[in-house]
């Protein structure tokens, strides 16, 4: 391939293999950690904990799909979406309506949710992503607002403000996944596949193209990266994942109501991505953890919750750009140094 060039200083000899091994060890590291965490999570229902904790676990996993996908869009691809909860809601209602109103097999709801959200993302994304600048943020905000109105007003389909009732639970033959412990493994599996797929994406050629676009779109284009193409792909993919999360939500709660899917939720999801550590893979876990657990812990401070999130987000962006994940990495580095 490349010939040694004469007169070039300093060609540093043959390619040293240890450097390469080091890096592949890092890759193995991320994957291995994921598997360990995953297996650990499966323990939740098996430990015979009460239904409440298991439902928290289910919520955590669903929120992980939401925040993990949003983190890739914002943190790795540099596109701000303020409509993620809208795609979440679209997926929830699509899946719910399929079984509650159309009487179809609830299993169809899962892929249907992905498809519906993906199509909606195409409709919004194509015009919004052609432009330079963060117009996607506003376009998705407006889109979410419109969806909220639709969820509220299309009463025969969505049940309106009182919510969608009559969602049929998923079933394997005659075994209905009708309580938290039963549906947990499915949610666990889906979340695991999503997080694995996202990890694969980030570490791939496509992931590099994404990250290049986020840092310098001009340089990326000069290297043959079609920025619009990749932005659209990531936007549609993450919207489909949010849709999947929605279908899992509606199947684990057998209910959906418009207030869970408004643009305020979308904004909060962005705050969670920032708090967890945007652009860091582990950030999704921290973000989902905060999002799931904080409302429970802060129940007494309910009204102050949002202030804490908002101020926390600002603090993270100013002082801890890595969010909690970055802080975690810093601690890990200090620990390693202390041990050596």
């Amino acid at each position: 391939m490349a010939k040694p060039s004469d007169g070039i200083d300093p060609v540093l000899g043959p390619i040293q293999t240890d450097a390469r091994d080091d890096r592949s060890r890092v890759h193995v590291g991320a994957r291995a950690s994921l598997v360990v965490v995953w297996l650990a999570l499966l323990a939740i229902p098996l430990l015979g904990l009460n239904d409440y904790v298991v439902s928290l676990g289910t919520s955590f996993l669903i929120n992980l799909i939401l925040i993990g996908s949003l983190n890739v869009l914002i943190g790795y691809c540099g596109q701000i979406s303020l409509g993620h909860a809208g795609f979440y809601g679209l997926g929830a209602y699509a899946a719910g309506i399929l079984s509650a109103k159309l009487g179809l097999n609830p299993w169809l709801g899962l892929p249907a949710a992905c498809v519906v959200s993906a199509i909606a993302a195409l409709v919004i994304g194509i015009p919004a992503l052609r432009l330079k600048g963060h117009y996607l943020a506003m376009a998705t905000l407006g889109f979410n607002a419109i969806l909220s109105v639709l969820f509220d007003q299309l009463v025969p389909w969505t049940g309106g403000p009182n919510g969608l009732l009559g969602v049929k639970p998923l079933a394997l033959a005659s075994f209905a996944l009708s309580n938290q412990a039963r549906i947990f493994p499915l949610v666990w599996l889906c979340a695991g596949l999503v997080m694995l797929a996202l990890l694969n994406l980030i570490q791939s050629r496509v992931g590099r193209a994404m990250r290049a676009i986020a840092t310098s779109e001009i340089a990326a284009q000069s290297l043959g990266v079609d920025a619009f193409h990749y932005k659209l792909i990531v936007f549609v993919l993450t919207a489909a994942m949010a849709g999947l999360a929605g279908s899992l939500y509606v199947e684990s709660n057998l209910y959906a109501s418009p207030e869970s899917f408004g643009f305020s939720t979308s904004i909060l999801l962005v705050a969670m991505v920032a708090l967890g550590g945007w652009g860091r893979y582990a950030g999704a876990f921290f973000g989902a953890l905060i999002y799931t657990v904080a409302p429970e812990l802060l129940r007494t401070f309910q009204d102050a919750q949002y202030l804490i999130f908002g101020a926390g987000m600002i603090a993270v962006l100013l002082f801890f750009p890595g969010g909690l994940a970055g802080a975690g990495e810093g601690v890990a580095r200090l620990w390693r140094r202390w041990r050596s």
Partner: protein
Amino acid sequence: MSDTAAALLDVRGLACRFGGLQAIAELDFSVREGEIKAIIGPNGAGKTTLFNMISGVIAPSAGHILLSGERVDTAPAFRRARLGLSRTFQNLQIFKDMTVLENVMVGCHTRSHCGTVRALFRSPRARAEEAGIRERSAELLARLGLFQRADEPAASLSFGESKLLEIARALAASPRLLLLDEPAAGISHDAALRVGELIRALNRDGLTVLLVEHNMGLVMDISHSILVLDHGRKIAEGPPAAVRNDPAVLAAYLGEDDDA
């Protein structure tokens, strides 16, 4: 001048207007395959604007740009890269959030294919392609003397090293024509000499180079042909010896000190 080599790049009647300012007007020139051509001229002559038009950052207001006879002036920048055009930037556009190696790996984008689906599933073909990309990028880094820094964040490189990284990255795309935007600006005299050597070596391997440069020593040393711009127009074109003594060129440069 005998045209034994075909024109790789053809610029015809190119013009660029920003509001009331005519940055480039009626520009015609060619870059022959296998040559090193330099664009020089006083500040404000329009050199970077010209580069930006050729690479696709700005659209020209008139004229054509042809790459191997094919019109590219309406093609977006990423398509020109796929047709064999690569460039570096005067204001470095290093991907600071990636490692040095990953920067070059992005450069391999046009020469690799695996798409999103294969990426999501990490298919065997994707894995094999990744290994190939990594190896190629490592070799390029080695060639440019940056291999030791491969796994470090690109933000930690010095200015001179960053310029080399941009070149390595641009080379990863296997270009036929490389546009270098002031490769010797801001680096030491010795480093500039090494850059000159690098360009000559790349050229011997078959790469056509078009560069914008202020370092006259470098330009006179390595160029086969020089294009001189002043106020957006060509005032001279030819081999270094001819251009060096061209009275119009001297007037343009010396005229800068003449504040009448």
